[in-house]
């Protein structure tokens, strides 16, 4: 590997890292603003024009708050919890293809940090690690609300990971590869996987809501029952990390959904654009398309949050085990029949 390649990779990693942090930051602002619009309000508008400096003010506040570690908490695990949560949230973006290869001068740069051939498994591994941050934090707090939140998070994430994995299996039967890059390339133009796997996509998005602990599956932190759930005892930036991790997770799972089901950086008419604008501009347009899809998904996450009330715990388990898993298995069988006899 040449030095230039290493530098380019490093720059790419820094850019993706920065983008995911900024997107997470402004998701907090967008969430409050969108919530306001859904409720016929105006939303934050005091910090800067239209309140766009609000995330900075919130971040500054988080940093300056008093750091409290409860006496009976386990100090090491108490700090390890939020660290793990934010770490696992951040490393998920490594395998996502943000665009086609781009030609800058003489260099051909892939807009993906690394194309490992088990990209989906990597994502799944990172996602299932994410629950440890919540579990450790909830357990280390030595508080019954935190513990209940952590238990809920663990059982919910494990239950929904199963149907998520099963819904992916049907997708893999169609695509025949685990590499996210190849999956994105197969969806060239308008051949998006959602057209072949609509049920799989619905299963996947429901599970994505559960995995990111968003409403209607926000039982781990539901304030009406558990004060703050797993982060009841957290203050200062440690709380900030938990909240931040949730938004980064939302960003990453939106990117995964866009890549797996909605064509990633592909859009109808991309060949025409490539022929007319050249190999430098066209991939950038693809990146813009990718981010548009991601932002639409983030908007959808928020839209659902301000529409649907939370599931009761037993309803959540019913939905996960009695409906989603059988449905996912039926989807696999139907896909198999479709591949064997019709395609």
């Amino acid at each position, binding site marked *: 590997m040449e030095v230039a390649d290493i530098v380019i990779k490093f720059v790419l990693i820094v850019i993706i890292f920065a983008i995911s942090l900024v997107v997470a930051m402004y998701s907090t602002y967008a969430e409050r603003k969108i919530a306001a619009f859904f409720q016929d309000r105006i939303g934050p508008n005091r910090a800067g024009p239209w309140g766009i400096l609000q995330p900075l003010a919130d971040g500054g506040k988080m940093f300056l708050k008093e750091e409290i570690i409860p006496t009976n908490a386990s100090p090491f695990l108490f700090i390890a919890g939020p660290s793990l949560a934010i770490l696992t949230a951040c490393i998920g973006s490594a395998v996502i293809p943000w665009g086609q290869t781009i030609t800058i001068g003489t260099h051909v740069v892939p807009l993906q940090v690394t194309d490992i051939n088990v990209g989906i498994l990597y994502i799944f591994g990172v996602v299932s690690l994410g629950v440890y941050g919540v579990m450790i934090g909830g357990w280390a707090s030595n508080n019954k609300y935190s513990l209940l939140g952590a238990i809920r998070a663990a059982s919910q994430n494990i239950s929904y990971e199963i149907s998520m994995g099963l819904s992916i299996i049907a997708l893999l039967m169609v695509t025949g590869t685990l590499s996210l890059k190849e999956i994105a390339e197969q969806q060239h133009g308008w051949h998006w996987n959602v057209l072949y796997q609509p049920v799989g996509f619905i299963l996947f998005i429901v599970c994505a809501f559960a995995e990111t602990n968003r409403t209607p599956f926000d039982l781990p932190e539901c304030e009406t029952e558990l004060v703050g759930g797993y982060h009841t005892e957290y203050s200062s930036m440690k709380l900030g990390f938990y909240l931040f991790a949730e938004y980064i997770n939302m960003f990453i799972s939106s990117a995964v959904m866009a890549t797996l089901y909605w064509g990633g950086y592909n859009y109808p008419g991309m060949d025409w654009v490539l022929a007319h604008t050249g190999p430098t501009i066209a991939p950038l347009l693809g990146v813009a398309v990718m981010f548009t899809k991601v932002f639409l998904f983030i908007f959808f996450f928020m*839209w659902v949050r301000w529409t649907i009330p939370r599931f009761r715990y037993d309803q959540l388990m019913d939905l996960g085990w009695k409906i989603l898993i059988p449905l996912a298995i039926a989807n696999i069988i139907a896909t198999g029949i479709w591949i064997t006899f019709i395609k």
Partner: protein
Amino acid sequence: MEPLSNKRKLIESKPLNFLERAYLPAIAQGLAITMKHFFRKPVTISYPEEKREYSENFRGLHSLKRDENGKERCTACGLCALSCPAEAITMIAAERQKGEEHLYREEKYAAVYEINMLRCIFCGLCEEACPKEAIYLDGPHVESDYLRKDFIYGKDKLVEAPLNQ
């Protein structure tokens, strides 16, 4: 049990049908409703920049009136303080000196006139009691402040601005 009134109503609860149990149609319906609200005009009045209009008979901050020649109408009779159920009004009367005829209408006037805005309940009994039509609750509402002592409004805040000649 015998019905105690004829208002009893039998409620039928049918088991949910398949579409209702599938959640998704109901969720789509809910999403449509929230989306309608997304584009609706916000009902917020952004207060300091934008003020809500008061109704015609709104009772707000008191003002001590002047007559058509710019003289203070109040003669410090004390009827307003007497009528005040919250005991918010205090005053000290003084006699008008020679050369002050252009300032005060009657021979007696209020040298000090204070209303404690934290006690006042804005009932309007003082304006009803006033025989000289000197006090009216026609101002805006009382603004916020940090200290209790700053809520005792004296004549500097209550008396109407002098007429412009």
